[in-house]
């Protein structure tokens, strides 16, 4: 699979390393060259310095038609914008944006982006460990729609949502919580260091 990762922080660089080692074609983008120090010397993918919210940069990085696009910078809005560019303009297939604000995370799942909310994931992990009730905050959310107008407007951008393999039918969130609960412990150590 072709996997594009925007943001070479702890999570981004670890995923880049993992998927590269698993034999995928990995491109990682960050606006700081020093961020690439996190990648191991054995990393066989490409590391590109640039602004991940700039369509030209994403195109040059080969994000067009990527199988997986992960927006994992420290800025919620940068992730949202990069993910929407990937989704709407570049025809990337499965797009995930890290959005730490639970309100925005839910809102953007409703607008067609899979969202990953560290706040909800960590709070529920803590609650789970302490045996306390879980929150109703989002963790890993599958997209449950697409943004209105996406079907009609003829402005040169992609107008129909691509099928999302591995995600339940549109509106079906049942797959998300189970995958989130299994993914949470695995991603927690990384996420914890980052806070």
């Amino acid at each position, binding site marked *: 699979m072709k996997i594009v990762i925007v943001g070479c922080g702890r999570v981004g660089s670890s995923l880049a390393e993992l998927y590269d080692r698993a034999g995928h074609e990995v491109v990682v983008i960050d606006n700081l060259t020093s961020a690439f120090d996190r990648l191991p010397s054995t990393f066989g993918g490409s590391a590109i310095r640039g602004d991940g*919210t700039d369509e030209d940069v994403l195109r040059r990085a080969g994000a067009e038609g990527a199988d997986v696009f992960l927006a994992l910078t420290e800025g919620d809005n940068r992730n949202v914008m990069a993910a929407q560019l990937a989704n709407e303009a570049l025809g990337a297939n499965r797009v995930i944006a890290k959005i730490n604000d639970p309100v925005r995370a839910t809102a953007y799942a409703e607008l067609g982006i899979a969202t990953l909310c560290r706040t909800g994931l960590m709070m529920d992990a803590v609650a789970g460990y302490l045996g306390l009730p879980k929150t109703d905050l989002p963790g890993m959310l599958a997209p449950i729609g697409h943004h209105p107008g996406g079907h009609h407007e003829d402005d040169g951008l992609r107008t129909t949502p691509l099928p999302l393999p591995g995600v339940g039918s549109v509106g079906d969130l049942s797959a998300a919580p189970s995958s989130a609960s299994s993914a949470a412990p695995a991603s927690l150590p990384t996420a914890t260091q980052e806070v």
Partner: protein
Amino acid sequence: MFVLVVGGGKVGYYLAKELIESGHEVALMEKDRSRARQIAEEIGSIVIAHDGCEGKYLAQAGSNRADVVAAVTGDDEDNLVICQMAKHHFDVPRTIARVNNPKNEALFRHLGVDELISPTRMILGSIEQDIPVHELLHLAALGEGELELIEAHLQSGSPAIGRAPKDLSIPEGCSLFAVIRDGVATPLRPDTVMLEGDKVIAIGKQECQDLLHDQLIGEPEEARAG
């Protein structure tokens, strides 16, 4: 009207000030606390010292009853998110975004932002208007180079507007053969009346170009005045 302005830079500050002066209800969100305090001292307690991208604070600012949300921060990604949240999450009827990178305009429009203001685009447009575009455009050299393929953009002041090729004195060795109108190319017949905005495609010898220029472009001074 209740207008929620997000971003307390120069644009947001003067926007809020003008809106208050014309009698509108205004709330201004600025996440930098010292900047927020400074604005509040100058124009009153309409300032909310929080990040307007954060869902919780947008709700606190009363965005669900706002008639207009204007996102005028210096960051395109923030302005996009503010407008999308306002529109899709808080049902704000009218959203306006400042767009710095003109290339983002298509995406913003596609994602439902109602109005875009691009200072970059406006300045660019203004500069380009000042550059005279009253020349013949050379598209290609043909044959041994003695013939040229030429495009003439008919703008106000062109003597060809409202006339057909048979009414013009086209220099010998020159042929007007096609016209591009609204992006569609059609053959230019001797009796086809040419309109303002048409792009006329011609083939001609190099030495006829001055005459062709006179017939299709006209006097630059005249055109500029028009």
